[in-house]
């Protein structure tokens, strides 16, 4: 009888304490939606030409024969054209098939002002998009510390980035060029890693998982987007 009473008392105490904790104060995590301004100040209705991208090939690629079946260039072009047409008001066109990149070096490609001006004239595009694409299998794991220096207070912060075991990596370097002058307007890198459940995971599925997770960032080059952020607020 006494034990029963003691148990009931303990249960009542736990319930009361649980009820009392929020009322006594502390910290809560809240979610905000933050706007992201487009990286390029545009009117929003420009004519954009999608030029070929440099394909970065990994010497280890031969080891993973599955990737040889993926036409990264064609899949990326199709994805980018579809997203830009669906989510922006740009007039999106592809450069004619006879347009060949003058170099396979990204730095030189960004500097090929005459070539890009010629592409702009040929396509009547105000902007030309090119860059490099790399799609590969990555086998790594562990925590990596990344340094981040705040330009606001000049202090250095550290963040932990966990690199998973096996997965597909899609590394895109985006070049946006002025179709009139051929001048480079923007160079940006988008990188995504998707862990695969097993080595047998379909490579095309992996590629699109990478692309969908990068979609927001890619589109944010041209149009405003938003993203979710977490913050701490005090309850008293």
């Amino acid at each position, binding site marked *: 009888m006494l034990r029963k009473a003691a148990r009931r008392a303990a249960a*009542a105490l736990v319930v*009361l304490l649980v009820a009392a904790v929020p009322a006594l104060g502390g910290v*809560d995590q809240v979610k905000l939606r933050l*706007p992201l301004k487009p990286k*390029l100040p545009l009117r929003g209705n420009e004519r954009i030409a999608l030029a070929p991208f440099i394909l970065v090939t990994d010497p280890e690629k031969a080891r993973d024969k599955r990737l040889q079946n993926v036409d990264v260039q064609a899949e990326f072009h199709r994805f980018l054209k579809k997203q830009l047409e669906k989510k922006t008001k740009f007039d999106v066109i592809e450069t004619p098939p006879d347009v060949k990149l003058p170099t396979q070096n990204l730095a030189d490609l960004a500097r090929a002002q005459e070539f890009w001006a010629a592409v702009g004239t040929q396509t009547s595009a105000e902007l030309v998009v090119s860059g490099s694409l790399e799609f590969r299998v990555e086998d790594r794991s562990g925590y990596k510390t990344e340094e981040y220096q705040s330009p606001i207070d000049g202090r250095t912060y550290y963040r932990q980035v966990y690199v998973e075991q096996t997965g597909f990596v899609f590394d895109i370097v985006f070049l946006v060029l002025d179709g009139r002058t051929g001048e480079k*307007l923007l160079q940006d890198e988008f990188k995504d890693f998707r862990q695969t459940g097993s080595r047998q995971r379909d490579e095309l599925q992996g590629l699109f998982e990478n692309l969908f997770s990068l979609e927001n960032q890619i589109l944010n080059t041209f149009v405003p987007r938003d993203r979710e952020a977490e913050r*701490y607020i*005090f309850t008293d």
Partner: protein
Amino acid sequence: MKLDRIVVLCLLIVAGACTSYSQPEKASTQIAFGTKVAKQGLWREAAFRYEQAVTKAPDNARAHNNLAVALEASGDFARALAEYKRALEIDPNNNYIRRNYARFAEFYTAYTKTTGKASGAP
């Protein structure tokens, strides 16, 4: 007998915490109410409450932090930056405020950065 005492004590603690809502002149009351509405997504109302808290207790780092978050959620980033800085000035060792500020700084840097301009752009 002992159980009765414990129950009464717990009830007193809960009741004491709840009565804070009935004291609007206290900064902690404004913070508590602001947090309640913030969780419902009513950020402008929350910002108003936290402003009240800051007015009542200008050296309360928690109030400045909450106000910064509410201003950030309402899109007033310049003021949010000033409030985060003030909160850190008052309580530089508070990890929650430091984390908030670091995340905000990362976002704000990207937000204020605009790269390049097309020749036909406005």
